[in-house]
């Protein structure tokens, strides 16, 4: 196999600690405790190696990355190397001073999640009292500091009637971007699918509204729209291809081809503290296994779309078919697609309101 090109992006999950308990969190169901986290010097070393390797953008995420007291030092290290830094935050713990300090350290962009457009919904989903007001306040401080803002709106059955208000909220907060991101049903969200998954008609209605809003707000607000892939015809090009241009790092330094890859337990993962990042990217088992298209089976192998969507999500293929090298069942060409659709429709019609909140030590079957 030819050597891969240099990676462009890195998702750095600095910690799994988070004051919010959103029931669709993209972190693993088995969360890492704070004593497993890399120390400041180790993160600085990882980021230095990342810049050397060609990474141009780092998304500082979590958990809640602002719980790391060394966040300013990490941002400064990346900024020094010309790496674009994006802070992905719940924002409830950010003070005006902290935002100013991060801006001074060279932070390029801030993304704040909003669980709803009113205090009741935000509190119901985040399980955090006063979350909405704190987020609004932090978003205004971000703009006052001259930093650009993306409003991230995870959409599901408890808030799908607020898509229109999310557009108003983004405009009111002077955001540059709005992500209307339907929850993807892996990990925590999969556990909560009967409470969260909207029906296909609802997703179609959102798509029509977003298309119109995009036209109306050209040059004013960029709107990204992500649908749940259960209702798509073709799978998402997960990570832009396995080991193609991005990687994720867990709080303990484990380097992954995608943030959920640890659900594929047949893969061997390396830690950035044990092995140089370049070697992990270029030669490790976990990155080599599904890189390119050689590993594919039918119907992917002979599919003209194989270089567009790379067979979809490996974690979802494993979770739903038992084989990580199978075609993602989100694809209409997958023999498991109809079963997936039936499962999704059933889940969306069940309408159980019981939410399992994200907690360290929470019990639940680990599913991709």
């Amino acid at each position: 196999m030819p050597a891969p090109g240099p990676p462009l992006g890195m998702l750095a999950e600095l910690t799994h600690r988070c004051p919010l308990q959103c029931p669709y969190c993209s972190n693993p169901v088995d969360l890492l405790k704070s004593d497993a986290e890399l120390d400041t010097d180790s993160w600085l070393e990882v980021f230095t190696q990342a810049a050397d390797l060609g990474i141009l953008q780092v998304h500082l995420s979590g958990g809640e990355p602002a719980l790391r007291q060394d966040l300013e030092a990490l941002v400064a290290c990346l900024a020094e190397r010309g790496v674009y830094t994006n802070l992905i935050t719940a924002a409830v713990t950010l003070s005006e001073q902290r935002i100013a300090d991060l801006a001074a350290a060279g932070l390029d962009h801030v993304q704040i999640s909003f669980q709803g457009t009113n205090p009741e919904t935000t509190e119901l989903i985040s399980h955090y009292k006063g979350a909405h007001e704190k987020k609004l306040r932090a978003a205004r401080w971000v703009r006052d500091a001259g930093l650009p803002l993306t409003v991230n709106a995870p959409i599901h059955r408890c808030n799908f009637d607020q898509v229109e208000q999310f557009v108003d909220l983004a405009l009111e907060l002077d955001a540059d971007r709005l992500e209307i991101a339907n929850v993807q049903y892996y990990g925590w969200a999969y556990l909560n699918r009967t409470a969260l998954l909207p029906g296909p008609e609802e997703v179609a209605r959102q798509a029509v509204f977003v298309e119109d809003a995009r036209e109306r707000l050209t040059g004013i607000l960029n709107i990204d729209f992500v649908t749940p892939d259960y209702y798509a015809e073709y799978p998402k090009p997960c990570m832009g291809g396995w080991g193609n241009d991005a990687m994720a790092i867990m709080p303990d330094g484990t380097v992954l081809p995608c943030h959920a890859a640890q659900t594929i337990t047949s893969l061997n993962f390396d830690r950035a503290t044990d092995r140089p990042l370049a070697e992990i990217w270029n030669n490790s088992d976990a990155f080599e296994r599904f890189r390119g298209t050689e590993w594919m089976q039918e119907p992917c192998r002979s599919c003209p779309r194989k270089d567009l969507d790379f067979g979809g999500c490996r974690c979802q293929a494993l979770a739903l078919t038992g084989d990580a090298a199978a075609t993602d069942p989100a694809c209409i060409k997958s023999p498991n697609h109809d079963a997936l659709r039936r499962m999704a429709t059933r889940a969306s019609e069940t309408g159980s309101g019981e939410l399992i909140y994200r907690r360290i030590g929470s019990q639940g079957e680990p599913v991709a």
Partner: protein
Amino acid sequence: MRERAIIEPHSQPALPRYVRLQFDELRQCWALLAPERVMWPDEISVDILKRCDGRATTDAIVSDLANDYAAPEDEIRQDVTTFLQEWADKRLVVCMDKAEI
């Protein structure tokens, strides 16, 4: 509320603070970094973007490029304006005359 920037001859286009044009030593080409995206603008795009400093007007950029490329201004005016409008509509270029960044 912010308004859509319309590129006029007297507009002073600029890259907003969250958009960075930098030369990538490793890959030996220009990279444009923006929220959630990395772009690889071609040589002509880079020549236009480098001139978007918030001071030069569209007209000045056109005549500067016409000079460098030894091409008639009228020929490139439409192309440059269309390019800048497309980029403004993606919020990758803003106009200083709108006092907005």
